[in-house]
């Protein structure tokens, strides 16, 4: 049985970039543990020699011609943005 502690949930929340309050962490730890318990039964399935199934589409990747068919729609690209300037999206200053 896997059980998620608060620190693990804190790490997952950060990886997911979702702010969670301290109380929220405990509640989530409970919920997520419950879900993990639920899916735990998969461990009993024998998958010896079984290839993971990533897509049911019985196809291979279709290839597109190397042509410029898109772009030059700056206005459409930016029209829903919360903040723009000089044709760019704007975000809080990024420090490298």
């Amino acid at each position, binding site marked *: 049985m896997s059980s*998620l502690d608060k620190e*693990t*949930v804190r790490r*997952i*929340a*950060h*990886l*997911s*970039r*979702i*702010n*969670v309050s301290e109380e929220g962490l405990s509640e*989530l730890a409970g*919920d*997520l543990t*419950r*879900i*993990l318990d*639920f*899916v*735990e*039964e*998969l*461990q009993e*399935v024998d*998958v010896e020699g*079984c*290839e*993971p*199934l*990533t*897509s*049911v*589409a*019985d*196809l291979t*990747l*279709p290839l*597109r011609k190397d042509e410029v068919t898109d772009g030059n*729609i700056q206005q*459409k*690209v930016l*029209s*829903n*943005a*919360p*903040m723009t300037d000089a044709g760019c*999206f704007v*975000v*809080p*200053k*990024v*420090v490298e």
Partner: protein
Amino acid sequence: MTDLTKLTLAEARDGLAKGDYTSVELTEAHLKSMDAHRNLNAYITETPEKAIEMAKASDAKRAKGEAGKMEGLPIAVKDLFCTEGVQTTAASHILEGFKPEYESTVTSKLFDNGAVMLGKANLDEFAMGSSNTSSYYGNVINPWKDKTGKDLVPGGSSGGSAAAVAANMALAATGTDTGGSIRQPASYCGIVGMKPTYGRCSRWGIVAFASSLDQAGPMTKTVRDAAIMLGSMAGHDAKDSTSAPMAVPDFEAALSGDIRGMKIGIPKEYRVDGMPEEISKLWDEGVAMLRDAGAEVVDVTLPHTKYALGTYYIVAPAEASSNLARYDGLRYGQRVMDEGDSLDDMYMKSRAAGFGKEVQRRIMIGTYVLSAGYYDAYYNKALKVRRRIYEDFATAFGTVDAILAPTAPSAAFAIGENEGDPVKMYLNDVFTVPASLAGLPGLSLPTGLSSEGLPLGLQLIGKPFDEETVLRVGGVLESAANFTAKPAGQEG
């Protein structure tokens, strides 16, 4: 004049063709019905002006003799389909106000075929849910009532679409199905819902939940309506790499009514412990109807059925955790940013405020099962079990033409029930998830009523890209069941 909202899609199509009424009249009738049923909260965004405009254009097109297959027929569009210039929210706060600069392939096809859009139907946030109680824009209420008269859930995630069709607020609606999101609400609302084969309808322009599972499909009043509408939604799309390069058959022509000699499989593993007596009975009745119609009914085994839900609740959240990373408050949608915030602060606040609880849970579970040290134990393991499930069906379809099973383990339940425990809610998908994991076409149609007087659906599952057989058997079952019950206020 008959109430135009009570027509089926096929009847309305034929009536329009005969000139019994115009698309504008048909559309106005539905807009009126939308007004009357606003309490059901089936729509997030109503687009009456656009609808009338489209209806007028459609009537003009018809006058020129250029009627398409869905010409003039007013429908609801699940608010997961991006619609150009019309707010598209996925029922999430994070997309509030988002107006796409593009039209999804499926809605484009429908509109090219003449369909008229009445509005954007409510759903569970990002299509994650089985009760339509996770929408930021409020719960959808099922038009059906049990004997206590409590508000019931319409099912989910396409709950708004199902309620709109059941309450005659649309002739039909688009839905999307990831783990049962078309079939389960169809069952709860007493309508027909079809999830086609994965790859049959383009996913381009549909807000993604779990890319390897998501499929668009029709939600309609009859099996024939589903066949008509699917024909207008389906088709290869070069913009979706997983779209199948296959011709679209004439689905309506598949409704021959003749299933003599067909083999219908009954999967014994679906007869789960604790299955309510009335579901079991409904299923048995369905079996009898198909047998009476000349089909041969045989037992099949799908041994990994019991692992389908666990598999689904790893695979779908894993994909979702990545698919929903783009909602970061940067290029569109809601942003929460305070003075002095860093980029990470902006991400974390925007996503915390923008996503509801269930979406947050699924993102985090998905993040966890993909994270270092857990990938093999959870995600990769689930993909392997998924192959086992896929192989189970392939084996079964070696001997049968279609599989019959219940759509859901119960009728619609009261709003608020099954909340608080995420896993309890997940159990509603137990019968729909396996076909989703295997990418198979599934059709739910109402065949009976529960002891509470609520609709119950049966589900037909077919071979990949054999929607025709599913529809043909569905048509026969529909006639035999002769399900005529309607929610209060919508009777004949």
